[in-house]
């Protein structure tokens, strides 16, 4: 290997292919089946080599049926099994499906709601609006949601996702059109979701949960692409709401159940792994099919969860603004999911763990309303910085299986973040910036802006690499956290 192909800090041979991409060849480790690509500029590369991100990505490259390259997005960091920000595709006919490649929070994702009013008109009412949202939308540990489901109703949500909420008046047809997969994965089978998973999900529909989940009130600060912004119905100064949550305890238990089940049968399929958390089974096996059906059901629960939260946010806005209080769903997209997709005439199981699907204008799954620009993608930053609206590109389909980043990406452990600044100090900092904060001191300290990478840099890398295109930058004005 020449000096030009060495990258600082890496114990593996690595070649910089472009200012935004580094490749680790298949020959780097004897057990790798495909090369690995890390989408990073020089600065983000330093972060990627500072923990076990690369080692975890190379472990993924050993899984049976891996296709093309495995990818780490610019926000990638060490996780368990797959790195967070990891993308890998496996042939459906002879490859595997891995619950650890999706993660415990199945279909964790984000949705953006756009108001008809601007921040300027609402400035004096933001504080009460944020507190009303906090009262209406249960967050953190404890409070249950208002929607109580009996067994048949739970089955309906698991089978149909957001679609099951239309008749209850909690979703509209337009909401479904503006949700990934129409908010309803047809492969879902509620019978594959255990009693334990249902128990953990009981009372959690319409709740945010804890950790890095939130509901954020924002204003559109900058428009980068006027045409795309217009297609998405966004304008400078507009008030928006970003919702970030997933399938709650139900999804966590589905992952727990199937990691356990697959760990027990891998020997039968002669699968040897460098990490047990990558537990997997052939997609075509009974265990693989069962997991996929259960994962789709949990994903439907997550779509419905974000939809019920949307309904609660709409009620708050209508109470506050009357007829002007409409909240339009721009789009809802997952960032923890395995999807069966066609790439180059092959059916592949594309695993995105902490990575967002980003299909371009010509993909049939891009909603009709957005065919001129591409599928919307939302990249939350941290509480004190910014979030981004992007659109997918046709180019990304060939570069990264149509995937892009999912956030700023953690750069610091929770313990380290708390040592830097207390929750009270984080709250004061945010309030000084004019951001209304609703959350416990512990959560605020752990999720402080300094615990994350620079979201502007992360988004610039995916923009420059062609993995997605910048449309708008959103500035937080109010945050509801767990």
């Amino acid at each position, binding site marked *: 290997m020449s000096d030009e192909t060495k990258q600082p800090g890496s114990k593996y041979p690595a070649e910089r292919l472009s200012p935004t991409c580094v490749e680790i060849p298949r020959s780097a480790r004897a057990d790798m089946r495909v090369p690995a690509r890390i989408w990073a500029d020089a600065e983000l590369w330093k972060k990627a080599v500072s923990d076990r991100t690369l080692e975890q990505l190379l472990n993924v490259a050993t899984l049976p049926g891996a296709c093309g390259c495995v990818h780490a997005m610019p926000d990638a960091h060490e996780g368990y099994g797959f790195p967070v920000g990891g993308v890998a595709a496996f042939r459906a006919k002879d490859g595997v499906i891995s619950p650890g490649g999706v993660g415990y929070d199945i279909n964790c994702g984000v949705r953006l709601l756009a108001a008809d009013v601007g921040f300027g008109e609402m400035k004096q009412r933001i504080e009460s609006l944020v507190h009303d949202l906090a009262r209406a939308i249960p967050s953190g*540990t404890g409070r249950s949601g208002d929607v109580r489901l009996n067994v048949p109703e739970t089955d309906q949500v698991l089978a149909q996702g957001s679609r099951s909420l239309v008749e209850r008046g909690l979703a509209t047809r337009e909401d479904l059109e503006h949700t990934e997969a129409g908010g309803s994965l047809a492969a879902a089978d509620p019978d594959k979701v255990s009693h334990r998973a249902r128990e953990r999900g*009981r009372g959690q529909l319409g709740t945010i949960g*804890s*950790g890095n989940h939130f509901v954020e009130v924002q204003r559109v600060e900058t428009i980068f692409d006027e045409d795309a912004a217009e297609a998405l119905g966004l304008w400078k100064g507009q008030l928006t709401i970003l919702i970030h949550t997933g399938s709650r305890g139900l999804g966590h*238990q589905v992952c*727990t159940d199937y990691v*356990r089940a697959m760990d027990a049968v891998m020997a039968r399929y002669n699968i040897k792994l460098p990490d047990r*958390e990558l537990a997997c089974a052939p997609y075509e096996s009974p265990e693989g099919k069962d997991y996929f059906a259960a994962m789709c059901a949990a994903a439907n629960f997550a779509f419905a969860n974000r939809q019920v939260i949307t309904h609660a946010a709409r009620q708050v806005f209508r109470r506050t603004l009357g007829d002007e209080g409409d909240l339009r769903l721009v789009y809802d997209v997952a960032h923890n999911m395995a999807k069966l997709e066609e790439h180059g005439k092959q059916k592949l199981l594309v695993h995105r763990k902490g990575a967002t699907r980003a299909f371009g204008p010509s993909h049939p799954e891009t909603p009709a309303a957005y065919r001129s620009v591409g599928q919307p993608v939302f990249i939350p930053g941290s509480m004190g910085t910014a979030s981004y609206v992007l659109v997918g590109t046709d180019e990304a389909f060939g570069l990264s299986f149509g995937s892009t980043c999912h956030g700023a990406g953690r750069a*610091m*452990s929770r313990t380290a973040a708390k040592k830097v600044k207390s929750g009270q100090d984080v709250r004061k900092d945010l309030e000084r910036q004019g951001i209304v904060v609703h959350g416990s001191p512990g959560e605020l300290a752990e999720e402080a802006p300094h615990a994350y990478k620079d979201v502007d840099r992360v988004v610039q890398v995916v923009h420059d690499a062609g993995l997605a295109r910048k449309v708008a930058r959103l500035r937080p004005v109010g945050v509801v956290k767990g």
Partner: protein
Amino acid sequence: MLPTMAWHRFLDHTSEITLHVGAADWPGLLAEAGRGLAELLLRGAAMAPDGDWRSLEVTAHDRESLLVDWLNEIVYLAETGFWVPQEIEIDEASDAHLKARARGVTVEAAPSLVKAATFHGLHVRHLPDGLEAEVILDV
């Protein structure tokens, strides 16, 4: 040799929490791992256990998966029953099966901080004076 005092601590991880636990023997290690997880679920709040002892039982297919399944059992009980075991006695523990008794605290709200115990980097190691293990918890 005196029996090793059981101990646990939390190690840094970029996005999750690593539970590092040690004890003189396997039953002691399982009990201490449960106490460590309880501390995390209660976010360090000092709460005295109340109520009767409850019986708990877990079956797995090897030593590492028993540790993971045991911790996931506690996560499940905490989230669905609003109950976190604190005083833990392991009555029987083989590599694939454990029987335990526990007294704990009833909490008003489900502690949802920990999603699951994972297999990533999981190891149970023999030390000259006992055992140690590391488990990454998804938070």
